């Protein structure tokens, strides 16, 4: 291990956790195996709210379990503040976890649950009592300390799990879909609270979710995972606005994926010809040159519909769905594919458009993104 340590280059300053080509293979039965993580490399900064986002079964929990020490990597290294943690058992890592199903100790009271970590660290009684009080106040349950943890609602259990993990002032907090068991209202409230808490405590949060809205609203940075591989790492707006590949574009909200052929460059834009002949302007990417086949991502909210025949691409509305804050249309372009379009309902019957109407779709230069992957 020491030899391996001296070979690994030092981690960048301010890096809380670094994963280097981490691969995890589970043996299932005698012959079968599942690759839960495939060559995952990541650097999570200190004080960062970092989100792992991906569909069910993509390896999110496995990644957390490797960091917490419940599983061992098959290949690769995990560095915690610059030190290789291979072989370090979970109870020796300065990391705490809020488990997917909370895992509160049912035979203990709420206060005993919150005190558990500090008791194991042999802190003195007065300090433990004070911290437990502070923590329970922090999660807005100051009077429930004497309850058995089995007598709590889902939301309360979630708060206790959070208080129990935070009481130890870990340097890194792992949160495995902690909000998934809550109803919508409470979930939205907890999102804000978690975000505030993270900012105030300065603890590095690694937050797992499969909810893209949750990821977008809370995170400093997001890593999108699929089938054990990292698809893209970046800030919420970078991931939403500039998805690296069709999977990310599709997973992060709705999008129109359009195949196109690149044309000539015009100032800082490149012409993209859709199937059918209609053209849109996108920002050129890398080495892609004229004649290349590419996939474009065009967000439905970036398209504006108008009845004015003087501009935009001609089309006809084939479907119209009122959704409260906006209306969802499907528009078949005369010289192109069918598009999904969202129009904000800013005024009463803002557009007054219905199925069968001829419209023009305005697509601003650069609204469509060329996907590289």
């Amino acid at each position, binding site marked *: 291990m020491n030899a391996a340590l001296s070979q690994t280059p030092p981690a960048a300053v301010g890096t809380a956790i670094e994963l280097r080509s981490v691969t995890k293979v589970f043996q299932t039965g005698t012959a079968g195996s599942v690759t839960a993580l495939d060559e995952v490399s990541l650097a999570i900064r200190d004080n960062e709210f970092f989100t792992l986002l991906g569909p069910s079964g993509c390896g999110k929990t496995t990644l957390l379990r490797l960091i*917490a*020490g*419940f599983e061992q990597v098959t290949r690769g290294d995990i560095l915690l503040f610059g030190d290789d943690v291979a072989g370090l*058992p*979970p*109870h*020796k890592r300065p*990391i*705490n*976890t809020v*488990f997917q*199903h909370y*895992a*509160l*100790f*049912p*035979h203990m009271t709420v206060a005993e649950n919150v005190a*558990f*970590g500090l008791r*194991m*660290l042999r802190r003195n009684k007065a300090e433990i009592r004070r911290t437990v009080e502070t923590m329970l106040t922090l999660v807005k349950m100051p009077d429930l300390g004497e309850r058995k943890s089995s007598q709590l609602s889902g939301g309360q259990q979630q708060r206790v799990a959070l208080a*129990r*993990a935070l009481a*130890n002032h870990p340097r890194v907090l792992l949160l495995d879909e902690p909000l998934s068991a809550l109803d919508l209202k409470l979930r939205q409230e907890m999102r804000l609270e978690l975000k505030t808490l993270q900012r105030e405590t300065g603890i590095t949060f690694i937050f797992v979710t499969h909810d893209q809205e949750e990821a977008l609203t809370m995170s400093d940075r997001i890593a999108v995972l699929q089938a054990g591989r990292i698809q893209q790492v970046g800030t919420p707006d970078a991931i939403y606005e500039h998805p690296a590949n069709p999977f990310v574009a599709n997973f992060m909200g709705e999008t129109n994926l359009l195949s196109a052929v690149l044309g000539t460059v015009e100032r800082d834009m490149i012409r993209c010809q859709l199937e059918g002949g209609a053209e849109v302007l996108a920002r050129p990417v890398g080495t892609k040159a004229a004649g290349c086949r590419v996939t474009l991502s065009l967000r439905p909210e970036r398209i504006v519909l108008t009845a004015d025949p003087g501009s935009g691409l001609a089309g006809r509305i084939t479907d119209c769905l009122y959704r409260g804050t906006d209306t969802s249309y499907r528009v078949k372009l005369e010289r192109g594919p069918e598009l999904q379009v969202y129009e904000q309902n800013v005024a009463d019957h803002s557009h007054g458009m219905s199925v069968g109407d001829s419209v023009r779709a305005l697509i601003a230069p650069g609204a469509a993104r060329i996907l590289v992957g």
Partner: protein
Amino acid sequence: MMAGPRTFDLKRYPGFGFIAAVCLGLLYLPLFVLVFFSFNERRSVSNWSEFSLDWYAKALANDAIRQAATNSFLVATVATISATILATAAALATTRVPRFRGLTGCYAVINSPLMVPEIVTAVALLSFLSLIGLELGVGNVMIAHTVFCLPFAYLPIRARLHGMDTALEQAAADLYADPVQTFRHVTLPMLMPGIVAGAALAFVISLDDFIITQMVASAGATTLPVYIYSQVRMGVTPEVNAVSSMLLGVSIVIVSLAVLLRKKETT
């Protein structure tokens, strides 16, 4: 016809009450008769005269009975404690390790005393203990009882451990508890209902054992069941009934205590 499949109720079938009464009668009538005649004033276990506690007084004053009772409780206590500790260790070893080849074999080995005819275990223990020349008197009985009580203690403990989420133990490890602390503060308290059930079962089984004790016990190491048997051969007296009733009473109390304790643990 009279009860559709959706409102199936066994109690409404003709003859249900009768069969149930016969079964319960077969189970409890002999016990009732035994206890009943232990209060008989006369020296008869079939002709009732009047109520008296004389036979209980006599039994309690009988040195041989007191010796046998002491032996029984000593043996049962020691066997229960050692069997429960071993069973807990075995249950941990068979549920808290990654699956390995031969795990099923382990279950079979641990539980085999349940399958092997008791007389075979008895003879085997007798010849083995004499082969190695172990002559500890009551100690021999304790060793023998530990052996056959082990699977009875093991089964409820394993069942409890098997149904227990390892997430709790991982949560403890996540909160800086080393393996010993995790066991002490999380696994053991959670496991307690299973341990209590296993211990109660082991205690009652040990208290009640006859065949193995009969084989292994030397003179002076006699337990209550063996004593009762030796007395019955000379004819059943209300004194035997009284001793048997007390043994029955102790068993019932222990099992009830275990049930009560478990109720308290789970709420």
